[in-house]
């Protein structure tokens, strides 16, 4: 019962927690670059500022799809935390991405379209790896439900070390971090799929990214099994690794991204599955 309440509180607070993570991230990155960095609450100040802007949009369909992107990604996180079927979780997450992609295509802007195409390509790059990881969970616990993973006494990373490495490799794509941030490379596509959102409508995408953070790091924590503190510890370590990599690498183009995720990360995850059977 306590677990359930904790889960519900976690889900309800996910956007806020994600905002904090983002604040810490900006601070950490700044320190890595020898800057002071903004306050940890800066994302929330930005949030308030966006609310003050004059509401503008291209058309309602576009704005609505953006809002639903936020709803869908929150929903995916809820199913993940409440112990739902991992395949359903991955699919919901794909749907959330799809809503953003379709939103990007729904306006007649070159940059929006380019961004959408890149966003879809990113999904194409990491989705198969996620599914391979889900199959790994299934082969270890005998169930696709994340509740089975969260009840497993032995941390899954022991059985799935290579799959964990694969997750580390695709996490920058999901979180849009260098070297795999082609989807919203602002120097190239002026913000990508998000370009035509502004003010209160951009708010939805802005907070959706915070929820995405929680989603990504929850996936990492799943590898710890029942041990929640180990999970938080792993997520923290991964957080620093991802940001260190983000700070120290330049952006690759999308072909290299596909090659690395489908050519290295996916085979790694599958190799792990083969080891499980042998």
């Amino acid at each position, binding site marked *: 019962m306590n677990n359930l309440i904790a889960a519900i509180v976690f889900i309800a607070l996910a956007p806020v927690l994600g905002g904090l993570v983002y604040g810490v991230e900006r601070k950490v990155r700044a320190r890595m670059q020898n800057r002071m960095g903004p306050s940890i609450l800066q994302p929330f100040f930005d949030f308030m500022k966006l609310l003050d802007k004059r509401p*503008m*949009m291209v058309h309602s*369909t576009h704005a609505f799809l953006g809002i*639903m992107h936020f709803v869908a990604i929150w929903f995916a996180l809820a199913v993940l935390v409440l112990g739902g079927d991992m395949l359903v979780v991955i699919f919901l997450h794909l749907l959330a991405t*799809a809503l953003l992609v379709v939103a990007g295509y729904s306006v*007649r802007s*070159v940059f929006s379209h380019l961004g959408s195409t890149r966003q879809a390509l990113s999904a194409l790059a990491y989705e198969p790896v996620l599914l*391979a990881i889900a199959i790994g969970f299934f082969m270890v616990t005998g169930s696709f439900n994340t509740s089975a993973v969260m009840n497993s006494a032995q941390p899954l990373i022991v059985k799935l070390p290579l799959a964990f490495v694969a997750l580390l490799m695709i996490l920058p794509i999901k979180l849009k971090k260098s070297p795999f941030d082609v989807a919203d490379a602002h120097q190239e596509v002026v913000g990508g799929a998000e370009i035509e959102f502004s003010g209160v409508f951009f708010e939805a995408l802005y907070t959706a990214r915070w929820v995405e953070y929680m989603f990504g790091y929850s996936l990492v924590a799943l590898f710890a099994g029942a041990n929640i503190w180990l999970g938080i510890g792993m997520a923290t370590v991964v957080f620093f690794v991802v940001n260190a990599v983000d700070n120290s690498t330049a952006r690759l183009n999308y072909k290299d991204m596909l090659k690395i995720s489908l050519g290295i990360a996916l085979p790694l995850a599958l190799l792990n*599955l083969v080891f499980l059977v042998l």
Partner: protein
Amino acid sequence: MSSLVLSLIAVPWIVAAVLLFAPKMLGRGLVVLTALALSVISVVIFVQGGSQPFSFSVPHQVHQIMLAADVLMLLYFVGVAFKYRSWLVGILAGLQMGMLAGVINAVGEKASEASPFLVDRLSMFMFLLVNVVSGLIAIYATKYIEEEDVREQRKRNFLAILMWFVGVMNFLVSVDNLEWFFLLFEGTTLASFWLIRFRGDDLSVRNALRALWMNQLGGVAILGAILFALNSNYGTMQISELVKQAGSVGFMLPFALIAVAALIKGAQMPFSSWLLGAMVAPTPVSALLHSSTMVKIAPYTLLRIAPAIAGTKLSYVIILLCAFGFVVAALGSLARTNFKEILAHSTIALLALMCLLAAVGTETAIMAALFLVLFHGVSKCLLFLEAGVLERVFHFKHTTQLQKLGDVGPKTSFFIAFGFISLMLPPFGAFVGKWLGVELLAKNAQIGTPVVSLLAIVAILLGSAMLTFLYFKVIGALISRSGEHEKPVSEKMAPCFFGVPLILALLLVGGMVGLVPLTNNYIAPVAAAVHGTLKEFSVDGFAMMFGSSQLAVWPMMGAMLLFPLVAFLSQFVRFRGVDRVKEYNCTERYEQDFASYYFSFDKLNPWFILVGTLFFVALVLVGRLPL
């Protein structure tokens, strides 16, 4: 019961004969009536039919008539070869004649008393698909062909061939005798040859000839299967007997050859070009070939022999061949702009998936395959009919033109989006099929065949991701527009251009809402008939259990309806009191480049063909190995 089954064959043939001479209005009325009658009959057969297969014998003369038909058809092929100077067709026809003579010779020694007909649950399932979907296509075709620029007599011929085709299909799924199966297999080849050739230009003739010789190769494989079966310990050419004896005899070559024939019909690499070429035909033909007839022979035939090949080395080769075909077809679709071409690639990919699941052959796999056969049939039919509407009403052929559609054709764009959604998203049946496939292969990977299963899983995941990517691009193009249009102008079109797709869409919605009863009452009995037993499947309230994995239909539906619903609603949501702005284009000219040319793998095509050919060779070679 036998008379009902025979009427499914005879009625379309008689109507086809009448259609050749009937005046326009009478002909059109007749088509509608026949479509209704056939649908009703197939439903009655399914409802009344028991779980036991039934067979009935025919007078001896019928065998002779069938043989005469065989010879006539092969002579016609020779004629075609001379007329179009196609030596390939000629050689294959000659080869078929020689092999047929060999078969007659071999049968003479072992006169068989067995009944040529065998109608079981699988046949009834196919009757439903063939008659309901093809009936709707035929009704649609009456309007479509009216606007074709050809003589009145040719229009009559067109409808007559369509009807005849339906009869042949019904016949094909109810025979048990391989020699008859050969005749009907080539009968569908002949019908599609005529239909693809219909427009008569060079390209049509060339593509029709290609379809002909490739499918003739399938015919050769079936005749080979008969010869090997008769001259081995089997000594029979009844499919049901062969399947029964497979375990004890252990000689798999006949099955390998039947599988080759099936996979050629199913347009797997390197034989995919015949189906891609078929799109030059009038659009109802594509709808017919892709959804309910012709290519569906592939999963049907593999399901027939599934109990014999499941778990053998033969099935591993088929699984890998199909996994390869799935990925290649999905890759091929990425760089296309022609709407029908995109649909054709997705058909080939999904056929590969159906055949893959049929070859796995466990109970859940068979159910998954049946899901895909049924729902893909309906969805693909809807999409092709809409392709026809695009041609006839809007004169569009390319997906780049689709972005104007949102403004001028809200109904059509809704149907297209719905069709694509029903092909890829839950809670529609096609998704359930894929989902089951992945779960099942994951289990197989644990039990015993890790490498084959894992490779197949990877193929399904990669292929599905690519196809989903493509479908979303199409949907994105459909809703793309600049600024609000407060009052969409609805397009005007003929009632059957709107009505037939509407019926198909309603069928899809019905199948989604009633997924649990549908599975329990229609899919499960069929799977039980194919597999022999049904132990894994059970229904628990609103959840369906497949072995240890549970498909919680209602919760899943609730969650997953999100996308279709949102995409639909988003067309009607209006935010008031918000200023509208133009897009930021940074002085770049707006131009939507639809195809991902970066993903053109056409230059790899020769390699794909080579690998595909090697797979087919391997299939035959593995058939030679002992069980």
